[in-house]
């Protein structure tokens, strides 16, 4: 059947039907390029495809099983639908007393649109002979069904809930813990029905280790707030071998305890698009707020201490100081913008706070805070040059010192405010490069503004107290917020590494303190002094060696205790080791290897739809296949080596050694039950 814009046909997965045994048929639509048909919820306009069946008595047809939709933006109007080639799956149950031929008749109608919309319809007929057992259709048709099943959303492996803001806008939270935010993009929630969620509003999902959070806009339905929210969550995951689009059916329950906060700023701007000017204003405001962040505060405290020293100086010196500090902040933000743009250009997308996800960065910043705290407390004075260039530079008086204080402020501001920035900069990062730079610079200006204003305004300066003994006391006091920040960074570190991180961080700090103590003993020039320096250097090196340990060490809290990570189940599988694999393969046994990770969504989907289905389990059992599973959640070095040998950067990776094979076969990254079963039963 062919219309102007769609070629449609009714296809069956079986060529012969067994009475009483359900089987699958599909309405296949091959749609003209740039045109689309619609999903069960068509979005802002359009209509879903409808099929009405005329079946022999006793036969039944289930509702359409829809593939995951794509988002189609028709100049601002959002449609949920399909392009190119799709199969709408329908399960048919023939009567048990069927004889002769099963005659399937169907009237289908659909709306097909590009800019304009055309309703089309067709009549379909399919006659299937009845046999004693169901006979599969030809391989090409079966492959078509296999692919179609892969396009259907799977049930969500994660629980989901949603909360309503005072405005009635729902926020969806999917408890997908332990995901790697940098590997996930294009997250979108397709509501199953019209009314509860406005499809026209843009969705800005945030992915963190805690899960996926999608603030939504409420829809136009006037009914009471819904108790549950159903829909399809779609995301694209970057895997070791490319990108995979995954879709999950979700039913979120209303969580009365979850009340998303609505910012008052939006109320006045509701309904207008966020212009660049407004974005700059928000960024400036955001920068100002950064001054109150726990990590930036001590840096400002340092700055305030320096300021107190300057209090007696001429105005020009203060002005120079203020400008230098501002320049430092802006240069640091500019560099960050450049880095973001460069990374975005190379990998397509970047998550703010990418350095924040690195335990090494957390550890180094914790060390920095600790050492600066020691300095403020008066344990040692700058001059030896052993504390690190950054601290030495910031401690330098005059414009250079002020400049590097600005740089330091930005450096420490990002890690502890990364989650905040990640959301706030969603706009900036989605913009072209000049806008990204402008927004980031505006944020920097906001950060520098209070100090700049102070240095520029004589009236404000007069309010600054005179220099005196209080300055030393203030300086000592400021060590405490600095140390508090170090504690916070260590806590962040434990989130990344588990409890072991505390040992490395605190042990490293003791080593650093020990080194400082050694260096302050006795006079210089003697043999003893050189010895002490050597030992101190060794201690510092050891402290930094913790960095290496962290890099090789566990990446999630779950595995830090040495036990198996909670995410990967080994039920029915042996733990992978190269020795076991080669031994079993050498013995002529079939071996199947599944390299997976708790954070790998594609792996999870493959397990659910292909590896752990009853039929697949049966096939594994019947063929006596040795099933090995490698858990790469924490980048196990043995597995990394295997991946490298096979030229893979990551998981999923599936290997199959047919009985007696000398080399394993690398299976595709997206598995289907049929492909697995045919692979296992191939040479038998």
């Amino acid at each position, binding site marked *: 059947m062919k219309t102007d814009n769609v070629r449609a046909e009714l296809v069956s997965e079986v060529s012969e039907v067994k009475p009483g045994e359900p089987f699958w048929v599909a309405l296949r639509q091959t749609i003209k390029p740039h045109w689309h048909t619609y999903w069960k919820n068509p979005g*802002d*306009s*359009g*209509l879903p495809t409808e099929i009405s069946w005329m079946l022999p008595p006793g036969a039944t047809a289930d509702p359409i099983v829809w593939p995951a939709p794509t988002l189609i933006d*028709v*100049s*601002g*109007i959002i*449609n949920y639908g399909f392009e190119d080639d799709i199969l709408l799956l329908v399960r048919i149950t023939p009567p048990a007393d069927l004889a002769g031929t099963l005659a399937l008749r169907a009237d289908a*109608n659909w*709306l097909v*649109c590009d*800019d*304009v*919309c*055309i*309703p089309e319809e067709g009549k379909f007929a399919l006659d299937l002979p009845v046999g004693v057992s169901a006979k599969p259709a030809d391989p090409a048709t079966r492959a078509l069904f296999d692919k179609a099943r892969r396009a259907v959303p799977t049930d969500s492996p994660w629980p989901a809930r949603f909360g309503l*803001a005072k405005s009635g806008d729902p*926020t969806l939270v999917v408890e997908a813990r332990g995901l790697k935010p940098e590997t996930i993009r294009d997250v979108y929630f397709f509501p199953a029905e*019209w*009314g509860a969620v*406005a499809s*026209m*509003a*843009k969705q*800005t999902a*945030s992915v*963190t280790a*805690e899960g996926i*959070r999608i*603030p939504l*806009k409420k829809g*136009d*339905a*006037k009914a009471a707030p819904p108790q549950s929210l159903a829909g399809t969550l779609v995301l694209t995951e970057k895997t070791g071998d490319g990108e995979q689009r995954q879709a999950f059916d979700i039913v979120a329950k209303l969580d009365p305890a979850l009340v*998303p*906060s*609505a*910012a008052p*700023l*939006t109320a006045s*701007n*509701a*309904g*207008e*698009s*966020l212009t660049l000017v407004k974005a700059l204003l*928000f960024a400036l405001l955001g920068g100002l707020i950064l001054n109150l962040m726990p990590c930036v505060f001590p840096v400002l405290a340092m700055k305030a201490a320096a300021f107190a020293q300057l209090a007696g100086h001429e105005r020009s010196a203060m002005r120079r100081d203020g400008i230098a500090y501002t320049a430092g902040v802006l240069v640091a933000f500019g560099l960050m913008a450049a880095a973001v743009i460069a990374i975005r250009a190379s990998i397509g997308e970047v998550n703010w706070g990418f350095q924040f996800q690195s335990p090494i960065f957390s550890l180094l910043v914790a060390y920095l805070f600790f050492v600066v705290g020691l300095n403020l407390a008066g344990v040692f004075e700058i001059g030896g040059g052993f504390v690190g260039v950054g601290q030495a530079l910031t401690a330098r008086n005059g414009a250079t010192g002020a400049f590097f204080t600005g740089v330091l402020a930005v450096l420490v501001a990002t890690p502890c*405010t990364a*989650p*905040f*920035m*990640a*959301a*706030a*900069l*969603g*706009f900036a990062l989605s913009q072209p490069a000049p806008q990204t730079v402008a927004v980031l610079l505006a944020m920097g200006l906001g950060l520098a503004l209070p100090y700049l204003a102070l240095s520029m305004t004589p009236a404000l300066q007069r309010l600054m107290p005179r220099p005196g003994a209080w300055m030393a006391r203030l300086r000592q006091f400021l060590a405490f917020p600095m140390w508090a920040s170090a504690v*916070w960074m260590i*806590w962040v570190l434990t989130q990344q590494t588990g409890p072991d991180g505390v040992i490395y961080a605190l042990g490293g700090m003791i080593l650093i303190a020990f080194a400082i103590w050694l260096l302050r003993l006795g006079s210089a020039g003697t043999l003893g002094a050189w010895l002490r320096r050597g030992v101190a250097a060794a201690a510092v090196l050891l402290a930094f060696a913790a960095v290496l340990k962290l890099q090789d060490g566990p990446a999630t809290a779950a595995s830090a205790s040495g036990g198996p990570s909670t995410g990967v189940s080994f039920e029915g599988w042996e733990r992978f080791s190269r020795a076991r694999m080669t031994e079993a393969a050498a013995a002529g046994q079939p071996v199947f290897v599944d390299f997976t990770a708790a954070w790998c969504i594609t792996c999870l989907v493959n397990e659910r739809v292909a590896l752990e289905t009853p039929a697949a389990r049966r096939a594994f059992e019947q063929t006596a296949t040795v099933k090995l599973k490698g858990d790469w959640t924490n980048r196990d070095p043995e597995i990394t080596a295997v991946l490298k040998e096979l030229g893979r950067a990551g998981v999923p990776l599936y290997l199959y050694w047919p009985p007696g094979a000398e080399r394993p076969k690398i299976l595709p990254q997206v598995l289907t039950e049929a492909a697995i079963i045919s692979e296992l039963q191939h040479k038998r």
Partner: protein
Amino acid sequence: MSKTVVQRRAMLLGSAAVALAPMSAFAATDVGKPAPAFSATDSNGKTWSLADLKGKVVVLETSNQDCPYVRKHYSSANMQTQQREAAAKGVVWLTVASSAPGEQGFVTAAEANEITRTRNAAPAAFLLDPQSKIARAYGATVTPHMYIIDASGMLVYKGGIDSIPSSNPADIPKANQYVRVALDEVLAGKPVTEASTRPYGCSLKYGNNAA
């Protein structure tokens, strides 16, 4: 201690996301709120402004004469009948062509008059909205998208013309005619039972207007 930190982070995250989330370029007016003001020229050169229509019940009907869903309600005479019924009750029925120039459904004044004549329509006026200003102010997404504004200027209904989203005119007698029912309720001084329904039809052709 760690717990409180997490909550604050989460809170900041939430508020920041709301503050900076790119907002839709369309306004979506809620029923029960004042209807957005507009002023537009009709196909006979007369200017219509919502403010001047205070005291009257107003119906807005977005139109694109080539859209199959608009055609469904004109070929069956459903739309024209309702226009005449409304006029008889003193309701001001405004048909609005909001398609951008070059898009399907864009009409000149002469074309608009010709369309009204050939489809034997009876709106109070055929408004020309080539910049889609009215459509955008009301958040219209489809043709036909229907709105009712009461005598005090409140939006009291928005959504579809009826309850069966299809392009088949045979469905009209079976459908719940939302607009007719709502108009009767408004004129009787009663609250509208189904005040916000699912609009259905072709996407409104904003073209570059939406940018």
